[in-house]
């Protein structure tokens, strides 16, 4: 059975380590915050200028001056700090953020990512994504394996305008966990009950499958 978006987030949360500073993009990545293991110290960065992002405020406590990069009302935590956008991207650029999780429209087997523009159709802009993918040490993409029309979002080469090149390290989809190696996509784990062959058939690029592939544990 394919994972739902909460399960994708849950699987990604397993990549967290104590002491990590993490930037979570809009959409599924945001949900990862709900699955930080008890007792593990993970600090969330929001690129609009906050380290130590807390949960949504209790109703009535919303403050228009305190939002995350998704423009949602949030809270601070003990140990939080606020800074301007130059410092925010300064710490991103200098590699202080240990893990970046973001969504994508396409990922190539070289680790290229496209997630900001569909020519002639949609031009929302790249926001902070280009800065994040150009500098982050460890980038995980969270996305559905295929588009709503069933097309693979994992490709030999991206067809959409790129956000960054050779930067994605791992992809967690509803069907699989895939690592990007020097020789391309490599299947690491599969969704419970989903076969390696099914994943292969839904991946429009070579998929390396070596030995027994374990199921994703969530």
């Amino acid at each position, binding site marked *: 059975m394919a994972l739902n978006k909460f399960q994708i987030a849950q699987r990604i949360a397993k990549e967290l380590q104590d002491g990590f500073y993490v930037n979570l993009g809009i959409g599924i990545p945001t949900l990862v915050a709900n699955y930080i293991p008890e007792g593990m110290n993970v600090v969330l960065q929001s*690129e609009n*200028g906050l380290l130590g992002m807390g949960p949504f405020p209790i109703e009535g406590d919303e403050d228009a001056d305190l*939002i995350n990069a998704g*423009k949602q009302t949030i809270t601070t935590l003990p140990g939080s700090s*606020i800074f301007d*956008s130059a410092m925010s991207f300064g710490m991103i650029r200098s590699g202080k953020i240990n893990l970046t999780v973001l969504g994508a429209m396409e990922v190539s087997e070289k680790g290229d990512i496209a997630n900001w523009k569909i020519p002639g159709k949609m*031009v929302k802009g*790249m926001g902070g*994504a280009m800065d994040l993918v150009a500098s982050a040490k460890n980038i995980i993409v969270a996305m559905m394996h295929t588009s709503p029309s069933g097309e693979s979002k994992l490709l030999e080469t991206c067809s959409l*305008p790129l956000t960054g090149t050779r930067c994605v390290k791992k992809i967690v989809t509803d069907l699989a966990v895939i690592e990007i190696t020097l020789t391309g996509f490599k299947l690491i784990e599969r969704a419970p009950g989903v076969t390696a062959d099914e994943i292969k058939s839904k991946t429009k690029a070579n998929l390396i499958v070596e030995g027994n592939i374990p199921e994703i544990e969530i």
Partner: protein
Amino acid sequence: MNKLNKNAEDAIFDIEDGQTLMLGGFGLCGIPENCIAALVKKGTTNLTCISNNAGVDDFGIGLMLKQKQVKKMIASYVGENAEFERQLLSGELEVELIPQGTLATRCLAAGYGMPAIFTPAGVGTEVADGKETRIFNGKEYLLEAAFEADFALVKAWKGDKSGNLIYKDTARNFNPLMAMAAKITIVEVEELVEDGELDPNFIHTPGVYVHRIFQGINYEKRIEQRTVRKVD
């Protein structure tokens, strides 16, 4: 050296058609509401606006777009504005989308007197088209020029008569950077205080960068995504 202005109309009196403006804020958070309202009233046109976002249809820079006061928009993300998208697709509006960190750092460069900076953001993408690149320590960077703007319109939480400013929470965002970056910096504050009321150790923008300051009124401070949780 009186930096004090009566109100927004007073402060923006000499902004002219065709000029380049920086506008602080992230989404609708920390935007110069009073200055935007005064610009809409003044009807200045052909403006180039540098701002992270373009407001929503009926608030923020969206109000200026609706009146077709903006010729060109330089931003990093414009996904919340249908009228913007219409003008863009119809070719009425010129748009330059740039990475958010590049936007921030090009402001910083202007404020710190650095003519250009190197950033890896956009390398290998269409953002790099026509730009000079250079490799340092095996990594490729784009050369990006400091911004040049006629005015910065900045929203602060508190400011004193010398122009020292502090911002509240994430309403800080681009405001202190733009405050340093333009030829003339106009600041609206929620609370104007006397010199000496702000602790010199905790000033976000030193007064030397601020040319005009006024007490803002009627802040709406609209929330784009009201997200809440139940009491645990």
